[in-house]
């Protein structure tokens, strides 16, 4: 059962990392625009010629 000394702190550290991650994302304003964030994931960053045409195609579908 000595393994508990190792496993329990490990589990709690992992949980704490999750919490810190959540608080960090909250502070960063990542929950301010939940609708927009979903669409940004599939949009292109740089308006190069190739991606611009994709942007137009996307608009056509929406």
């Amino acid at each position: 059962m000595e393994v508990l000394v190792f496993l329990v702190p490990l589990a709690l550290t992992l949980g704490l990392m999750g919490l810190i991650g959540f608080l960090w994302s909250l502070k960063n304003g990542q929950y301010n625009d939940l609708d927009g964030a979903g669409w940004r994931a599939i949009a292109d960053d740089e308006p190069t010629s190739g991606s611009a045409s994709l942007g137009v195609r996307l608009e056509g579908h929406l």
Partner: protein
Amino acid sequence: MQATRDFSHYVRHLGSGLSHIDLAVEGVNCAGCMSKIERGLSALPDVTLARVNLTDRRVALEWKEGTLDPARFIDRLAELGYKAYPFEPVHAEAVETEQASFLLRCLGVAAFAAMNIMMLSIPVWSGNVSDMIPEQRDFFHWLSALIALPAAAYSGQPFFRSAWAALRARRTNMDVPISIGIVLALAMSVMETIHHAEHAYFDAALMLLAFLLAGRYLDQSMRRKTRAVAGNLAALKAETATKFVGADEISVVPIAAVRAGDVVLLRPGERSAVDGSVIEGRSKIDQSLITGETLPVKAEPGTAVYAGTLNLSSALRVQVSAASEGTLLAEISRLLDNAVQARSRYVQLADRASRLYAPVVHTAALLTMLGWVAFGSTWHDAIVTAISVLIITCPCALGLAIPAVQTVVSGAMFRTGVLLNSGDAIERLAEVERVVFDKTGTLTLPELDVTNAADIPQAVFELAGRLALASHHPVAAAVARAAGARTPLPGIEELTGQGVRGFINGQEVRLGRPSFCGADELANEILCRDPEASVVAFRHGETRHVFAVRQRLRPDAAGAIATLLKAGIHVEIVSGDREPAVRHAAQSLGVHQWRAGVTPADKIARIDELKRQGVKVLMVGDGMNDAPALAAAHVSMSPVSATHLSQATADLVFLGDRLAPVVAAIGFSRKALRLMRENLWLAVVYNLIAVPLAIAGLATPLVAAAAMSGSSVLVILNSLRAHRGAREFG
């Protein structure tokens, strides 16, 4: 005189050489719009940030200070096809955003703690029936305490604060029993852990916090969403004034930037946005929004002009006065203040429930303790059992019963076009027995409309509409709007007080007074049939036509009122307008009770009279003169076209041209109240089952956790039914 637009009022200087502005944008609803706007604005030189918020429908812009005029962004967005206007965050919205993010932080902490404690609790529960040694159990309990205590201290703040505030004011609310339950559960668990006992309730306390915070956060975020939409609508109304910045130099500024003593220009066809007095020019003005008098009044130097006044014939220079100079607006503000103070604080259903709940539960816990002692148990065991009664009855389902319904129903109302201004409006709206409508702008559409469009040939109508675009007169504007005219005719001249004229293919066209077009006979014919209408004549060569223009009832007004009457709700019209106009509207809507020519003070008097008779009144109104009555009524509603003051006073705001949202809102709130009561009963039934178990000393942490989450899920599922309104309001 060409006016420049001055938006400097909205610009924030961030330091480090950057300026920031927030714009509300209309019609952004997809990813395509988002990237189009961001690319379009980023392409402007010196713009450092252009970011669309799709949830709030806003754009945040930053640029190098002094290089760009904010008006440029609005023009750019107009080129892209979006209407935009600078947005000034109101204080209430900023506070709510801050609260929402605090609740979310608390929820994150509580959920993290609840999950990790549960991870430690399950081995303890299963270990208790198998082979866990007491040292291991104590180790797990201490670890749980290590997580639970700081987490509860942080994430319990919303409850502890509210409970403390209530107790200090010698009141009680739902947060008092919640706080007592949580604190006692944690304290007892620590004591039990110190004494190497078998049971600790850290998991139950934290799970309770997580559930309750989830309910509150959802409620809060729904309210924040509605407020953001309302804020955008207010911004897009773009209430501006044309201010003199030099002797003959004018600039369009937002109303918030106009100060007392400034001189503003009031063009014909414009509504004044300020209170003041005329210092130059002669014109006719329409004060109907303020006094209800629909006949125009003469304005000359010295005449008082109020916000909401419509200038009819020629330009005026108005000196702005402060609101405290004995103007009508000041009188209305005074009535409004009185009404707001007199409004009895409505006791929310949740607080009423907790007033019953807390004494009953706390007495039950006390009796349990005394009972066990009387039957020969030790004090320690008796106290532990009593506290377990408090823990298991801790109002998890009770705490969720109302916010869960509110969240679902405010979402449903939002989709039908009703925005909630105040949190407890749903409960008050459900109790409504009588609806008092204002007429102008509430039962009727806010804009004038052509009533005899069917009698006029399409080609003539179109031509008249294009000609009408050249005129500033509101009646002409109604013709242009009804004709859907977009391209003005070239070379049109306006004759003040007469009309507009020009030439088309060598033939003269005129639009204006009947005498100006030689169409007096036609006009008289129309006026005999409908004395309330305004007329405007049109002449093209020898063809003459007369347009009858009047306020038109909202398209579904009759249907909406019939639905209300069928549901047993009385309907009444109280209007500041003249008697014939009100009688006509009342008759065509089938409303038997109506009052005409009512002043703002009389409107309040009528509401108070109904109040004294014990009638719960919903006031629906839009004008400045309705604002005090809106505040005095049990619950109030405004159309989105209402004046700023009325909209800020009303509990609910409805969108669009139809009255259906008013009826639907009553239906939704009735259903919601029914579900809230059902949820409270569910919580009571849950307690009837759980409390005997706890009194008998059988409420182990496992039973507590299962019972709590079970009842919460049941209440949430029941609340989801609120997305459909009551049947009789279809």
